[in-house]
C-alpha cells in the first residue's frame, strides 16, 4: 500500500538516539500555528515555488493544464485557485524552483533507502524514525515499514502527536521501540486555540502509553510567549512525574526555519518574526524540570 511522504532524511542526528533515517509522513490531524514544516500538514500534494531558483525558462507555463502559472505585475506567481497539484510543472522544472511537497511511495521504496545505512544504525544505537506530519494518519503504511524494519533488525522510533483513538494509537505504539510524543500546552483552552484540538485525548494517551511499558520521550516545543512559560513547563512536568517509563522530557527550542517554506506555498506564517530562546532561558527551563526530578534535555 503506497504512502504519502514529504521526504526521507538519512544521517539524521536529532530525531532520537544514534544515527537515524527519518521518514517524514505527509498529512496531519492537528494544525499547530507555529508548525515549521507546513508542507506536512495537508494530505494533498502541494506545489512549492522557490522563485530565487527560477531560471525563467518558461516550461511550466507551457505545460500546466490549468494555466495556473501566471504573471502578476511582472512577477511569476502561481494561481493557487487554479492549481490542482498535478505536479507536471515540477517534473519539468530542473532548476528545482518548483517542487512537489509530497511523493507517493511504497514501503519497499522507503526500505530501499533505509537499508543503505543499516551499519550506521547498528554501530550508533540508532535506527529509523517515522515522523510527520502525523504517523497516525497513515497507520497501515507505518506498520508496514515498522514490520520490514524489524525483519531487518532495525530499531524504529515514531514521533507522534498522540491525537487519535486509544485503540488505534496503542496498536501502533505497541509495535515500536521508542515513542517520541508532544505535549505542547497543558492548558486545554490554549491547546485548542493554537493547535485546533483539545489535549484531553493526548494526555490520556500518554497515560495509556506509560502502561504499555515501552520507553518514550515527551517533548514540548518552546514557542515564545505561548508554550515557554515556567507555568506551562512546570505543569507538564507535574503531569509527567508519576509516569514510570518516561525516559526523557525534551524541550525543543523554537525552530525559525519555517518562513521560506510558507512563502513557497503562498501560505501565511504568523511566526516569521519570532526568534529562538536564548541559551540562558533554555538553561533556566531545563533546571526547572531537573529540579522537579525529571530527566531533561534541550533539543
Amino acid at each position: 500500500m503506497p504512502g504519502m511522504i514529504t521526504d526521507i532524511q538519512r544521517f539524521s542526528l536529532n530525531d532520537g538516539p544514534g544515527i537515524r533515517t527519518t521518514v517524514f509522513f505527509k498529512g496531519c490531524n492537528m494544525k499547530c500555528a507555529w508548525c515549521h514544516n507546513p508542507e506536512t500538514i495537508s494530505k494533498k500534494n502541494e506545489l512549492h515555488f522557490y522563485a530565487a531558483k527560477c531560471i525563467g525558462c518558461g516550461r511550466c507555463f507551457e505545460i500546466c493544464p490549468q494555466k495556473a502559472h501566471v504573471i502578476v505585475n511582472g512577477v511569476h506567481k502561481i494561481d493557487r485557485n487554479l492549481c490542482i497539484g498535478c505536479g507536471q510543472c515540477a517534473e519539468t522544472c530542473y532548476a528545482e524552483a518548483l517542487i512537489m511537497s509530497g511523493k507517493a511511495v511504497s514501503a519497499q521504496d522507503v526500505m530501499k533507502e533505509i537499508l543503505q545505512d543499516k551499519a550506521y544504525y547498528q554501530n550508533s544505537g540508532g535506527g529509523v524514525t517515522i515522523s510527520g506530519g502525523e504517523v497516525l494518519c497513515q497507520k497501515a503504511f507505518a506498520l508496514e515499514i515498522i514490520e520490514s524494519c524489524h525483519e531487518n533488525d532495525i530499531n524504529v522510533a515514531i514521533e507522534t502527536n498522540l491525537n487519535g483513538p486509544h485503540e488505534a494509537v496503542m496498536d501502533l505504539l505497541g509495535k515500536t521501540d521508542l515513542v517520541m510524543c508532544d505535549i505542547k500546552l497543558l492548558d486545554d483552552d490554549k491547546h485548542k486555540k493554537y493547535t485546533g484540538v483539545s489535549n484531553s485525548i493526548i494526555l490520556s494517551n500518554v497515560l495509556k502509553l506509560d502502561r504499555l511499558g515501552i520507553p518514550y520521550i515527551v517533548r514540548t516545543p518552546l514557542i515564545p510567549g505561548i508554550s515557554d512559560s515556567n507555568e506551562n513547563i512546570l505543569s507538564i512536568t507535574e503531569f509527567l512525574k508519576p509516569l514510570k517509563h518516561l525516559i526523557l522530557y525534551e524541550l525543543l527550542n523554537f525552530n525559525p526555519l519555517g518562513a521560506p517554506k510558507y512563502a513557497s506555498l503562498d501560505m501565511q506564517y504568523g511566526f516569521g518574526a519570532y526568534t529562538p530562546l536564548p541559551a540562558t532561558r533554555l538553561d533556566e527551563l531545563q533546571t526547572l524540570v531537573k529540579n522537579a526530578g525529571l530527566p531533561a534535555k534541550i533539543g
Partner: protein
Amino acid sequence: MMIKFINEYPISKTFTFEERIALLRELKIKQTVEKAKTGGANEDDYGLIVQNSFEYKLKPNHENGSIYGYDAWVENYCSILESHPLYCNPLDAFVGKGFLFLERLRPAGCKWNPDYPYDDLKVLFDKYNVVSGIDNCHHFTPDLLIGFELGWGGILEKLERQKEVHDGSHLAFYDSEIAVVKAIIAFLKRMADELFELAHEEDNPTLKHNLFEMARINRKIADQAPETFREAIQWMCWFSMLSRTYNRGSAGGQLDEMLRPYYERDIENGVLAKEEAVFYLACLFLQDSRYFQLGGPDVDGKDMTSEISYLCLEAADKINIACNLTIRVHDKLDKVFYKKSVAYLFKNKQGWPRYSSDSALAEGFMKCGFSLELARKRVAAGCHWMCIPGMEYTMNDTVKINLAKVFEVSYDDMVANEPKPSAEKLYETYQKHLKLAVDATGKGIMHHLKYQTKSQPELILNLFQHGLIEKGVNITDGGANYYNMCVDGSGIAVAADSFAACQQRIDNEKRLNYQELTKHMKANYEDRDGEYIRQLMQHSERYCGGESLGDAWAIRISRLYTELVRDLNNQHPGINFIPGFFSWSNTIAFGKTVSATPNGRKNEEPINHGANPCSGFRKDGAVTAMCHAIGAIQPGYGNCAPVQLELDPGIANDDEGIEKMAAMIQTIMTTGNTLLNINIIDAKKILEAHQDPFKYPDLVVRVTGFTAFFAMLSPEFRQLVVDRVAAVNTDKT
C-alpha cells in the same frame, strides 16, 4: 643573521609549560599571518619560517640555470648548511627551523634534466592531462629509527665502511652521501656552539637553563645517537629541517611507538615528568606539520596505543595548530583513546586527527602480494598515502590522471565518429582512451625511475632506507626493497556524473540527443535553452546519491581504472603499480583544462575533490550516502580514495553528539573506506574568513589530505573549501 628571541622577558619571570606553549602558539599565529601576507600557499605549512635575513643563490651546473645529479646537489646543499642561520626561541624545547627548500631554488620549469627528454610521452600527458610525476621528489617514508639507532656519526661510519667494499661504480653515491653527512654534522655542531653563546647572553634563569640544556643536547646529537626522549625529539626536529631544506622531504611514521622506548626509560629513570613530555611533543608539532600515525595494530595485531599515544593527543590539543595526526582504526583499538581523539576533533575544530582503516588498507595491500605483517607496517605518512618506513619507493601523490579530461577526449571522439552515439558507446571509447592514458603514465613512471638520479638524487632520505647504504645506490636505481608506484585518478565524480547524465537524460528519457547536448556544451550552456539543459543534466542521478546511476557509473569507472593500472605490472615486471583516487590540490588546475561536461559543469570549473562527489550530490547531503558510495569505489590494493567530510560544529557539542560521531567514523572505517579527513567548520565563520582571511588567523582547515591555515590559502582554494561546506549544509527539514 641569527633569529633569536633573547632577553625578551624580565629576569624574575618564571614560566609554566602551559604558558610556554601558549606564547609559542601566539608567535606561530603571528608568523602565519606574515607568511599569508607575503603570498600564502596551497599546501602543507611545513613549519617554514619567512625571513629576509638569509638568502641563498643557487650555483647551477646546467646552462638552463638548474642543478642536476649528485655533484650539484651536494655542492649546493653543503653551501646552504654552511651559511644557514640558527633560529632559536628560548621558550621552545627545540631548535630546528628551516628557511628554504633547495629544490625550490631551481628555475621554474627546469626540474627535470633536459638531457633525458620524454617528448613522445608529453604529447599524451597533455592530451589526457596527466601529471606524470617525472621530476617529483621523495613521497615515500624514511625510517627514522635508523637515525635513532646510529646518529649522524654512525651513519657516516657506515657509509665509509660500505664504500670500502664497493668498486668505483658506487663512488659517486658514497662520496656524495659522505660529503652531505659531514656537512650536516658540522652544521649541527655550529648550531650547538651558537646555542651556548645564546645561553650566556640570556639573563632569565629559566630560559638560560633551557638554552644550556638545548646546547648540550645539540652538541651530543650532532654526531651521536639520541638517548633520551628530549634528545630523540630534537633529533627528529633537525631531521625535518635537514630533509626539508634539501627537497621538502617527507617523513612521519608511527610516532607513539617511535618514542615509547625513550619515554618509558626516562620515566623509569625519573628524568622526565609527564607534563614535560607533553610540552616536548607540543614543540615537535609546532616545529613541523609532518604526518604521523597513532595507534593501530603492531605486526602481531596487538594495539599499539600506549600512554604516549594519549600524550600526543594532549600535546596536539595544547598547541592546537595544523597537526597531521592519523589514527589507525582497527577492531582492537583502545576505545578510550579513540573516543578521546573524536572529542578533540570536535573540540578544537582544526581538522585533526583523521582516521585510516586498518582492515581496508591491509587487505588491499596484501592483494598486491604482501604479508599481513608488512601491510600493518604501512603507516599514514602523507596527504592521502601510506608507506612502509624505510622500505618502499612510491611516488605517492605525485602521479595523477585527470579522468574528467579523459572523458572529454572520449566524448569528442564518440560524437565525431559514432553514427549511433550512446552511453555504452561512450564507455567503449572511454576504455580505449583511458588505457592510452594509463599506459603512458606507466611509461612515465619507468622513465622517472631510470633517470631521476641524473636529475635529483635523494641524498637525505636514502640514508634512512634499509639496504641503500649497503648497496650504494640512489633509491630510484633499484635499491629499495619495494617499488609500489602510486597512480591516482582524479575527477571520477565528473566522469561518473557525466556518464549517468547521458544515459538517463539522452538514452533512457530521450529528453534530448547527443547533437543537441554537444551544441549546448560547446556554447558553455550559455546559448538559448542552455541553462535549462544544464539544469536537466545536472539534476540527473548523481554519484553519492545513494545507489543511483551515478554511483553505478563510478563503480564501473573505478573497476576499469583499477584493472588498467594493475595491468601495468604485466607491462613493467618487477614494479608494482597501485591505483587510488585523489586530486590533492590539482582540482582547480585540472578543471581549467576541461571544457563544459555533460554533468552540467561549465567550462574550466574545478573538478571534484579526490573521491568526493560534485557539490549538490544529494538534497539532504547525507554523509552516509556519500561514504557508502566512496567505500564502493575503492580500488582495493592498499592505496586510498579518501573521504573528505565537512561537518558543522553543532553536530557534536555534547557527549551524546561525540558518541554519535565516534560511531559514524567507526562505521565509515568498516564499510570499505580507507581514509577519512574531517573538517569541523562553522559555515558562518568560514564565510567571514573567506571575506577577510585575517579575521580568524588561527582557523585551520583540512584542505585535501593536509591541514592548513585558512588564511594561507589562495582565494580560489578558499572558495573550494567554502563550496564543500555549503554542499553539506543544506537546510535540514
